[in-house]
């Protein structure tokens, strides 16, 4: 069995995955994206499966596209990375599959974005369509804030920052939920508590186990199916009208979720990889 890991640096998650693999007698071949040269006509990779763990979304995306084009199975696939890496495409996939998600709009100029924000009503959440770790996600509380933030994005950012993704703000109870779905099963979930409205664990905050029976488990599976993801983390919000899916992550971090849930997330990822390699 030949299993590869596409990665940029060996972080704590990567170490945990290496350990889980060696416990199962499997060895990863490391494909360091800093050293890769892809020759489009002569493909040299022959792995049974490759796990993608890049830091940089664009490196992941291009590498997966090239690997999938030559028939190599990857976890996740290019299509999944493309949808999950873009909040706009994720929303469209969720809406198209009737998975409840906050209302959202897209506009391309500061002027039309302001129209969209005003018609949605404050507060709204402005997000870069592509981006992670909560970076540049802004809660906009009033018109002055909207004008300033839009102007900064349009003036200082690359053209990607002038694709304005505007989402209704969900008034959540001081926490959100992150669940982990592997191979069509919700294996565990955590509550993320924070005093800040952004509850990303990369930004601090505390965590606790969240039960996965009921809507959390069910909606997580539906969200994973909507984007086609084999190994994904789903962000859910408890809105006054019920649970909604906010985002789906395709290269998830999990170091803070093992202890509270008692679930061996890296072990489950490796078990799934072995299954894919053997199929």
């Amino acid at each position, binding site marked *: 069995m030949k299993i590869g890991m596409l990665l940029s640096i060996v972080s704590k998650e990567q170490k945990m995955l290496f350990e889980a693999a060696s416990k199962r007698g499997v060895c990863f071949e490391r494909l360091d994206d800093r050293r890769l*040269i892809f020759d489009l006509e002569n493909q040299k990779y022959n792995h049974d499966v490759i796990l993608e763990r890049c830091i940089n979304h664009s490196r992941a995306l291009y590498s997966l596209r090239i690997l999938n084009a030559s028939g190599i199975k990857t976890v996740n696939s290019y299509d999944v990375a493309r949808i999950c890496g873009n909040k706009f495409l994720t929303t469209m996939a969720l809406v198209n599959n009737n998975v409840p998600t906050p*209302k959202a709009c897209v506009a391309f100029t500061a002027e039309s974005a302001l129209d969209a924000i005003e018609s949605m009503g404050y507060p709204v959440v402005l997000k870069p369509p592509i981006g992670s770790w909560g970076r540049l996600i802004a809660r906009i509380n009033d018109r002055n804030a909207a004008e300033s933030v839009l102007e900064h994005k349009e003036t200082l950012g690359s053209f990607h920052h002038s694709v304005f993704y505007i989402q209704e703000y969900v008034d959540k109870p001081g926490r959100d939920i992150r669940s982990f779905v592997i191979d069509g099963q919700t294996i565990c979930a955590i509550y993320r508590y924070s005093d800040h409205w952004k509850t990303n664990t990369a930004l601090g905050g505390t965590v606790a186990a969240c039960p996965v029976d009921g809507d959390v488990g069910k909606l997580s599976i539906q969200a994973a199916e909507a984007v086609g993801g084999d190994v994904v983390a789903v962000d859910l919000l408890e809105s006054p009208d019920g649970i909604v899916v906010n985002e789906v992550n395709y290269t998830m971090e999990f170091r803070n979720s093992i202890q509270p849930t008692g679930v061996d997330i890296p072990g489950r990822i490796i078990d799934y990889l072995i299954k894919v390699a053997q199929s």
Partner: protein
Amino acid sequence: MEIGIVLSRIRKDEKRLISEASHRGFGVTTIDNTQQVFKLNSCPDSFDVVLERCVDHHRAVYVLSLFDYWGIPTVNQQSVVETYGNRLLTNLALKDNGVPFPEVRLAYTPGSALEAMETIGYPIVLRPVEGSGNQLVSRIQEKHTAATILEHKRILGTYHHSIFFIQKYIESPGHDIRAFVVGDQTVAAISVLTHHWIGSIADGGLVENEPVTEELNQIAVSAVKAIGGGIAVVDMIRTKTQWYVQEMGPPTGLSEASDVTGVNIPQKIIEYVANIVEQGGKV
């Protein structure tokens, strides 16, 4: 028949397309992407077909994704625009379909990119993986220049500029050819004569009608079929022995090309769009 045209500015080409469409009795609605707010949870006004004429490639991709999800046929299809707006996706599609293109490598760091260039051998052409036209396209003759340009891209550019798309330089005898493909046919072609190594109309190249030979038509059409079909320009290089497809892009410069070739390209496009609707949205 109701046709929606998504655009950012009404240029000469859009004027001619609108006039051709009205001439055929179509209802034309322009959707200005600088004004429109696109709601993701509900479908907008319904059209029989949407023709995309955005200036900005990324806006085009987003807007076409929306209509795609809503089941409204678009020209071009979203996947086609996404492919021709990205040089990696274009080359993979060409490779899968056996269409000849100059040798290519992709790398993510200046170190690995330099190694790739040395393997191909100078001169090489470095292009942004996304983008159209000749912006930031560089011909690199030797290692020192390579290292300098790679450093500038890494330090000054956004992370997109650190996806290094490296192409073998193909010597072409003074001219590059641009074919206009509409569906199954190359409706017109032009050649650009220039002293600069990048054959470009914008740089003051001399544009002439290029006869559409069977061979030219076959290569250009197979290139467009490879990316999913539709309407596109195909930039090609002809050497003494072989044709190469250099890249593809949205159908722009229609008015100038129509004047040079005597072919009414906007009319051909509108006929194609009408045909798509008659066939129930299938390309």
